[in-house]
C-alpha cells in the first residue's frame, strides 16, 4: 500500500511554493500605484506577460501574494486565456517573438495552414514562435497574421518575414476620425441633450424601438426594450460593452472602431447617462491591439476635454478567449475570473457585473445611436429591404471579389449582397454555399441565397444570422473540411464547464475525421449538445455539422 508514502517535501520550508522576494519586487514595480482589487487580475497578468513575455511561476506566486489571492485562483485564470504563457520552474521560456497565424475558416480557405508550415520551417524556434490561432478578425484580408502586435494582411511568407526582420511588432494605427474632427461634425451634441435632461431614458428607448434597432452582437434583442428593463431597476448599475468580437468571420466592430471610434463612445455615454449607470466597462479583445490603443487615447482625450464626467470608462483587455464574447462569460472575465458563462435565469440585466443590474451592448449597436437620434428613427427603420428595418454591417469574406465590411440593408439576400456589394465571386469560383452567421450560424447552400438575411429568417433552415458574418464558399471548397475547421474552433474555444460542450466538441471533432461520418453518433451528440449545454457555444456548435448533413450530404460520405 502506498498509504503514507509520497514525494517528500523539503523540511527547510513550509508547504508549497515559497515567495521569491525579488519576484515580489518585480510585481510591485509593475503594479505601482494600481489597485489590487480582484477584478484587475487579468489586467495585472497582462502587465507581467507584456514585460517578461510570459508568466513565470515565481511571478504568479508573487502576484497572488500581492493581490491576496491563492495561487490556484491566479493559475486557473492565467491558464484559461490563450494569450498568457505560463512557465513553471524548469520549463523553457517562450521565444521572444510570437507570430500568430489565423487558421479560422476564411484564412484557412486562403492557405493559412501552408503559410504556418512555411514560416515554422523558415524561422529559428528559439527566436520566433509560430502559433496557429483562431480568428483574429481580419478575414477580408485572409490569410491574416500578427507579428507581435503588428497585423499583416493578405500575408505571405515574404511579408511576414519582412515584418519579423524589420522588427515591426507594434500595432500600426490606421487613420480615424479623432475627437476634434468628430466634434466639428456635431459629435457629442446628442449626449449633451441627454445630459441636459432634454432626452430621457424613455425617449432614447423609444427612438431605438421605433428604429427597430437590435443587438448586433448576434442575439438581436430589441435595444430599446433592454434599456427599459435596466432603467427600471433600482441601485447601482453598470454598462458593459462587448468588444470581444471573436465569432469567426466577424470583423465589423474592429472596422467601425478603427474608422470612427467616437460614434460608439458617444452611443455608450448616451446609454450610460440615460439609464444612469455607475461606470462603463469596455471589454475589448486582445487580438485588436490597434483598437485598444485608439480607445485608450480617445478616452483620455474625452476626460481631458470634460466630455467624460461623472460616468467614466474602464477599458478591459481580453486575453484570447472566444467564449468571453458570450455576455455572462464576458462579465466573469471583467470580474477577473475565468470566462465561464453563467446559468440563466437570472439574466444579466437583473444580476450582472458584480451582481448588479447590467446593460450590455455590442459595439455596433451603440455605433448607430447618434445617427438614429439625429436623423430620426424613421430614417433608420426605412433603410431595410423587404420590411426589415435598418442597416446591418455585414462582414463578408471568402470567395468574393471585394470582401470587407458592407453596410447594407437588413433583409438583403445573399445573391444581392454578392452582386451589389462584393463585385461578384472570385475569378474561377462558382458560388456553392455560405456561412450566414459566422462559425455558429450554420451553413446554407447557394440554393438558399435568395432568403432575406436578418434575425429570425434563417432559423427554419437550422441557421441564424448572428453577427452577420458571411463567409462565401465555392465549388473549390470541401464542406467537410469547413465543418471540421469550425468544430475544431469550438473544441478549442469551449470553456470546458459543461459536459455536453466540453466532451461533445472533442468527440465531434474525432467523428468528423472519419472517412464516413457516423450519423447516429453525430445525431446523439447533436441532441445533448443542443439541448443540454449551458450556453450558446455548445448549443450551436453542431450547427455546421447538421447543415452539411442536410445540404451537402454527399460530401459527408453518406
Amino acid at each position: 500500500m502506498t498509504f503514507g508514502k509520497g514525494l517528500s517535501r523539503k523540511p527547510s520550508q513550509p508547504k508549497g511554493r515559497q515567495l521569491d522576494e525579488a519576484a515580489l519586487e518585480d510585481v510591485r514595480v509593475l503594479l505601482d500605484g494600481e489597485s489590487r482589487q480582484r477584478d484587475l487580475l487579468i489586467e495585472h497578468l497582462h502587465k507581467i506577460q507584456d514585460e517578461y513575455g510570459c508568466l513565470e511561476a515565481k511571478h504568479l506566486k508573487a502576484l497572488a501574494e500581492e493581490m491576496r489571492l491563492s495561487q490556484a485562483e491566479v493559475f486557473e485564470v492565467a491558464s484559461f486565456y490563450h494569450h498568457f504563457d505560463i512557465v513553471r520552474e524548469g520549463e523553457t521560456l517562450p521565444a521572444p517573438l510570437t507570430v500568430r497565424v489565423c487558421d479560422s475558416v476564411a484564412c484557412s480557405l486562403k492557405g493559412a495552414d501552408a503559410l504556418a508550415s512555411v514560416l515554422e520551417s523558415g524561422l529559428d524556434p528559439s527566436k520566433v514562435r509560430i502559433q496557429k490561432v483562431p480568428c483574429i478578425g481580419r478575414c477580408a484580408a485572409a490569410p491574416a497574421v500578427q507579428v507581435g502586435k503588428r497585423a499583416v494582411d493578405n500575408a505571405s511568407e515574404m511579408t511576414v518575414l519582412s515584418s519579423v526582420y524589420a522588427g515591426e511588432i507594434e500595432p500600426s494605427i490606421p487613420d480615424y476620425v479623432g475627437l476634434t474632427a468628430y466634434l466639428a461634425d456635431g459629435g457629442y451634441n446628442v449626449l449633451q441633450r441627454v445630459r441636459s435632461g432634454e432626452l430621457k431614458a424613455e425617449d432614447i428607448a423609444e427612438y431605438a424601438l421605433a428604429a427597430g434597432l437590435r443587438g448586433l452582437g448576434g442575439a438581436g434583442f430589441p435595444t430599446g426594450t433592454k434599456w427599459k428593463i435596466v432603467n427600471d431597476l433600482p441601485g447601482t448599475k453598470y454598462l458593459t460593452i462587448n468588444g470581444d468580437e471573436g465569432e469567426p468571420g466577424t470583423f465589423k466592430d474592429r472596422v467601425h472602431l478603427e474608422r470612427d471610434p467616437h460614434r460608439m463612445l458617444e452611443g455608450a455615454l448616451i446609454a450610460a447617462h440615460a439609464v444612469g449607470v455607475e461606470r462603463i466597462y469596455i471589454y475589448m479583445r486582445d487580438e485588436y491591439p490597434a483598437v485598444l490603443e485608439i480607445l485608450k487615447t480617445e478616452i483620455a482625450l474625452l476626460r481631458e476635454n470634460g466630455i467624460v464626467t461623472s460616468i467614466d470608462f474602464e477599458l478591459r483587455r481580453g486575453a484570447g478567449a472566444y467564449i468571453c464574447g458570450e455576455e455572462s462569460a464576458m462579465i466573469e472575465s471583467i470580474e477577473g475570473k475565468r470566462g465561464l458563462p453563467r446559468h440563466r435565469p437570472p439574466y444579466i440585466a437583473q444580476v450582472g457585473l458584480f451582481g448588479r443590474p447590467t446593460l450590455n451592448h455590442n459595439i455596433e449597436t451603440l455605433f448607430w445611436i447618434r445617427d438614429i437620434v439625429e436623423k430620426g428613427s424613421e430614417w433608420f427603420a426605412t433603410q431595410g429591404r423587404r420590411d426589415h428595418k435598418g442597416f446591418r454591417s455585414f462582414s463578408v469574406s471568402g470567395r468574393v471579389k471585394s470582401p470587407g465590411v458592407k453596410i447594407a440593408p437588413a433583409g438583403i439576400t445573399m445573391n444581392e449582397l454578392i452582386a451589389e456589394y462584393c463585385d461578384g465571386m472570385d475569378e474561377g469560383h462558382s458560388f456553392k454555399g455560405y456561412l450566414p452567421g459566422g462559425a455558429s450560424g450554420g451553413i446554407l447552400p447557394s440554393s438558399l441565397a435568395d432568403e432575406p438575411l436578418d434575425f429570425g429568417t434563417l432559423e427554419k433552415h437550422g441557421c441564424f444570422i448572428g453577427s452577420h458574418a458571411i463567409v462565401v464558399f465555392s465549388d473549390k471548397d470541401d464542406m467537410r473540411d469547413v465543418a471540421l475547421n469550425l468544430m475544431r474552433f469550438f473544441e478549442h474555444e469551449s470553456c470546458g464547464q459543461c459536459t455536453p460542450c466540453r466532451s461533445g466538441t472533442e468527440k465531434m471533432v474525432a467523428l468528423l475525421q472519419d472517412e464516413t461520418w457516423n450519423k447516429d453518433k453525430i445525431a446523439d451528440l447533436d441532441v445533448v449538445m443542443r439541448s443540454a449545454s449551458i450556453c450558446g457555444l455548445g448549443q450551436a456548435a453542431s450547427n455546421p455539422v447538421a447543415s452539411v448533413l442536410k445540404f451537402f450530404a454527399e460530401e459527408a460520405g453518406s
Partner: protein
Amino acid sequence: MSEAITFSLDGKTVTAAEGESIWQVAKREGITIPHLCHKDAPGYRSDGNCRACMVDIEGERTLTASCVRQPSEGMVVNTETERATKAREMVFELLMSDQPSREVHPDPESDFWQWSYKVGVSASRYAPCERPVQDISHPAIAVNLEACIACNLCERACREVQVNDVIGMGWRGSHAAPVFDLADPMGLSSCVACGECVSACPTGALFEKSLMDEEAKVRAVYPDETVDSVCPFCGVGCLTKVSVKSGKIVQVEGRDGPANENRLCVKGRFGFDYVASPERLTKPLIRRDDAPKDQNIELNGSNYLDVFREATWDEALDRAAAGLQESYAAKGGAGISGFGSAKGSNEEAYLFQKLIRQGFGSNNVDHCTRLCHASSVAALMEGIGSGAVTAPFRAALDADCVIVIGARPEQNHPVTATYLKQAAKKGSKLVIMDPRHQGLMRHADHGLIFKPGTDVAMLNAMLNVIITEGLYDRQYIAAHVDGFEALKEKVSEFTPEAMAPVCGIDAQTLRDVARLYASSGKSIIFWGMGISQHVHSTDNVRCLIAMALITGHIGRPGTGLHPLRGQNNVQGASDAGLIPMVFPDYRSVEDPNIRAEFEDAWGRTLDPQRGLTVVEIMDDIIADGIEAMYVMGENPAMSDPDQHHARKALTTLKHLVVQDIFLTETAWHADVILPASAHAEKLGTYTNTNRQVQIGRPCVPLPGEARADWELLMELANRLDLDWTYSGVPEIYEEMRSHMPSLAHISWERLERDGTVTYPADADDTPGNEILFGDSFPTEDGRARIVPTDLVPPAELPDSDFPFVLTTGRMLEHWHTGAMTRRATVLDALEPEPVVSMHPKDIRAAGFTLGQQVTVETRRGAITLTLRADRDVSSGMLFMPFCFSEAPANFLTNPQLDPYGKIPEFKFCAARIAPAMAEAAE
C-alpha cells in the same frame, strides 16, 4: 418570508419553499434525478455543470439543470421527456468514454458508477480522449485524473467549504482539470490534506490511498463495517464515520455534526493508524529491579526490556496500587498526585479525580488544561462566573466583526478556521492579531502582527479608544457589569499613541480595530494559547472580557467570548473536576457545603484545601514533598516547561504509575506501566470547545492484553478498598452527572439517541443553549465583573546573550506531544522531523543556510534541529513545535507561571541560535 411556489412536477402539483431547487423538491417528492456535480450536503453550492440532472421545462428551448434552477409559479417541469432522458444518458455515455473501465477504476463504488448503473449506461460508443498522468505524490491521497469529470466539486470543497484555496480548475475546454496551486504535484503543493476534495469527488479521481492497491490506481479495500464516532484529536469535536476492515481502521469520514458539518482536517481524516501502531503497549510492564531511574534515558521498541519486564495484570495492578498506598501511608494525601488527561473521556476524567480524592484524600490532581487555558478559565470564572465558551464557534457566521487573537486555528483548530474564513467571505470583518503572520490574515480586514508579550498594551489601548470615544454600551453596563469606573480610570493612561511603540501597532490601526469591534452590531472574540501561555495570561483574558462586557458583545447571536479549547476533551475533563481547586462543575473544594456533598457521596473525609497544579507538583516532588504519582494518558516529560527539571522530578519519584497506549517519554521513568485503550477502542463521552457532549464509540478491538481505562481505574480503586462496582461507561456517566447540574436533562439515553447535545439544556427534549448569558451571569448577583490590568513584561526578555524571542506551539499535522501523530503514517510523512522556524531575512542576516542543522539554546537547555525559513515568523523570533521527542522544545521553555492560572510562559523566552556543532566544525 415569501410564499411557497406551486408548480407541476411530472404531472403532480408540488410546492417549493423560497430558494429550493427543482432537484430538492424532486428529492422530497421521491423523484430520483441523477446528479454528479451537485453534492447534496451542507455547505456545497450547486454548480449545474455536469448536466446529469437535466429536466424539461415546458416552453423553454433547452433543458435545464434541476440542481441550480429554482421553480417559478405555474412552471411545468417534466423529468422524463424523451429529450431529457436522452440528454442525461448521453452525459453519462460521454463521461464514461473517458473513464477507466470499472474493473480497473479508482473507485468502482463511486457515485459515478452507481448513477451510471441507475441511468442504464454501462459502456460508451465514443473514443476516449487523451489520458492524464497519475499524481501519487501525496502520502494520503491519490490523484487519478483519468477518472476526473471536471465537475469542480473538489474546487468547491477546497475553496468554498474548507476555504483552503489550494485547488483550482486549470486550463479550459477538454483540457480543463483540477490543479493544485500552480499545477503542482499535490504532495509538493500547499495542500493541507483536509481531504474534503476526496469526500466530494464523485468518481474517485481523488481517493484515499488507504483504500487502494499498490499502485494507488484501483480500489482494493472495502470495509466490513462503519461506526459513528467523534474525532480523537482537537477540541473542535468533529463527528466521524470510522470504517473498519479486519479489525483495522481503513478510512475516516466526517459526519454532519454541529461542529463540523462533515468536515475534517488532516489529523482527523488521515491520522487514524496510530491505533494500529506496532509500538502500542500490549502487556503490563514493571520496572526491573536492576534498572535505576535515569532522567536522560531514551527508550524505544527495541531497548525497553533493558528497563522493564512484562508482568501479569494482577502483578502490575498490585504493584501499582501498593506503591501508591505506601506513599500515602508515609505522607498522607500530600504525598500523592495524579495527572489525568484531556484526551480521555469524561467518564475517565471523573473516575480519575474521584480515585485521587476518594482514595487518598488529596486534591493534587490536575491535567494539561493547566498548560493551555487555565488562565482563560481563571479570568472567565472571575469575570462572568463560567469558564466555558459563551457561544459556539459557528456563531462567527452570524457576527459582523470577528476577532481572533493569539490563535492559529488553521493549524490547531482547522475546521473552526473554515467557518472563520467562510464568515469573512460572506462579509464579516475579520481581525487577526498574532505576533506571527498566518494564512487567515489573507482573509482578514486587519492583520495585526504585534510584538510578542504586549497583548495587554494593545488591548488596553483598544479599551481606551472604546471608552474615550464613547463607543461603550452604557445601558448594558448599567444592567449587567460592575467595575467600569475602575477600568475607565485604569485605561485612561493607555492611549493608542502611548501604546503604539510598546506593541508595535500604529495608533490609527488600534483605533480602527477598536471602533470596528465596538461599533459593529455583533462582535465575537476567539483566542488561543497565544493569549493564555504567558505570565500575564490571566490579564490578557481580563482585557478581552472587558472589551466584550463594556460593548455588550456577549449573550446575543453572533457575539461572545470563545477560548478555543485545545484537546478533544479539555472542556469535559475540566468540567468533570480534573482540577486541583474544584470538584465536578467547578465547585470549590474549599467550600465546606460542597465538600460535604462529595464526602457523603464518596464516604470519606476529603482534602479541604486546593491541591497543587501541574508545574507546582513537579516542584513539590523535587522539594521532597510528593513521592508517588499516577499518570493516565498525559506526557509531562514532553509537555511541561523546562523538561530537564520535569524529567528530574519524574525520576525523583519513589513510585510512578503510567497508564497509556504508548511508551511515552513519561513512561520511560515509570515503575509500572499499564497498557490502556485508544480512543477508537472505547466507549465514552467527550465535550468539545462548543460545550457539545458527544459520544465516541469503540471501532476496533483492544490490542494484546491492553484494557479499557475505566476498568483499570476500577481495578486500582478496588485494590485501595474503594469498592467500585461500575457495570460500564453509562453508569459512570450517570453518577458523574448526578454531581453536575450542567448536565441536567442530558441523560446517557439522550446522548445515545442524539449523538451530540449542547449543555446546558433546559429540558429533556429541547436542544441545549448555544448562546449563554443573554439575561444574567452565573455569579452571585448575576452581574459580571471587570478587572482592570497593568503591563507585566514577559518573565525573560531577550538580551545580548539570548537575543531572540523563542515561542512554541503546534503544527497542523502533529498533535500535542506527538505521541499519537508521530505514529500516524501520513502525519509523520508530512512533518517528519524537528524544525525551528526563522524569517528568511534573519536567516540571511545570520549567514545561515536553510535546511542546515542549528542549535537553539536558552538558559535551560539546548537542542539541535533543522532550520526552516518561514515568512510567518516575525524578524527577531524563533518558532518551534513541541511535538518532536528528538528535539523537545520544552527543554528550552521557561517554567515561570501566571500567578492566577498557574500556566507557564510557553510563548516567550529568550534564546540564541547557532550552527550545530558538527556543522560548525566542517
